[in-house]
């Protein structure tokens, strides 16, 4: 994925502190030296290309509700099927295959702890696979908005 200098600068400048004012994209466009319409088109295009998942707030999970990292060990030949079942479960927002006996790792969120546990119980029952439930005890670094090392990218 090759991005031009303006797209890179857009990402460098606005992973945090997006302006809260009537016309935020207009304010961003002045920083970037391009037009407001251009900023909006670029953001649309970056979302379509899956470079951005969205423009917007990241909620602090401990204040927004309940959230939990869980893992299951799916049989290798059924991993896509199990992953699809997990994706369909309510509240699942991340789901990755990882190289381990526990090969599917996902994050589930809910409005409160009880709802979350009920949903996990139901999913565990549906999958018929034992589930590792790993709530966060302490976060030392939980913000994934690091500076992109453009030179290192392919």
């Amino acid at each position, binding site marked *: 994925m090759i991005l031009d200098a303006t797209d890179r600068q857009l990402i460098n400048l606005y*992973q945090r502190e997006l302006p809260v004012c009537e016309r935020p994209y207009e304010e961003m466009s002045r920083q970037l030296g391009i037009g407001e319409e251009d900023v909006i088109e670029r953001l649309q295009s970056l979302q379509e290309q899956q470079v951005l998942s969205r423009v917007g707030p*990241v909620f602090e999970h401990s204040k927004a509700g309940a959230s939990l990292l869980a893992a299951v060990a799916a049989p290798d030949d059924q991993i896509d099927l199990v992953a699809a079942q997990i994706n369909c479960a309510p509240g699942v927002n991340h*789901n990755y295959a990882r190289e381990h006996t526990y090969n599917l790792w996902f*994050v589930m969120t809910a*409005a409160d702890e009880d709802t979350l546990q009920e949903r996990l119980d139901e999913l565990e029952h549906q999958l018929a696979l034992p589930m590792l439930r790993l709530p966060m005890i*302490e*976060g030392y670094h939980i913000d994934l*908005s690091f500076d992109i090392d453009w030179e290192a990218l392919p």
Partner: protein
Amino acid sequence: MTLPAVSTRNDYLFTTEAISAWGLLRLREQLEDGLPLTPRPYQTLAERVGLTEQEVMSAISQWQQQGLIKRLGLVVKHRTLGYQANAMVVWNVPDHRVCELGKALAAVPFVTLCYQRPRRLPDWPYNLFCMIHGVTRERVLQQLASLIEDHQLQETTHAVLFSSKAYLQRGGRYVSHC
């Protein structure tokens, strides 16, 4: 107006007393999908949830101050950009050292996430997690080797779980029905 029943967990929803609680709940739901890409996104949100543009902006600012919103900005999909080698490194650290080590690893520039989670014995002996987002596996493994060296982790049991596929990546849904 009758306020919807809420748990104590959502108390901060109502700190802006003058604003409709229902409107704020709907605003949170809308925000989980991100800001609209319209010239006046806060006005667009306001129209969708029955608040004014000013109310939407002040609610968002307040949520930022309170820490409910930890950042407002572009959420990057690192894998698309070329960060194809994402390793979750998990360690079995003595409980009395987990905090100190967690803070130390969190300060390493290439460690992108770091947290403590419970062990689940016998299957899962690891209690400290850190993530390294890298472009190549070789580079990530080099970084891990330097981490082990710098923090004297040679004797600490660990496992490296590279992600091989992303099935789903989107924002957390706390309010939305999903």
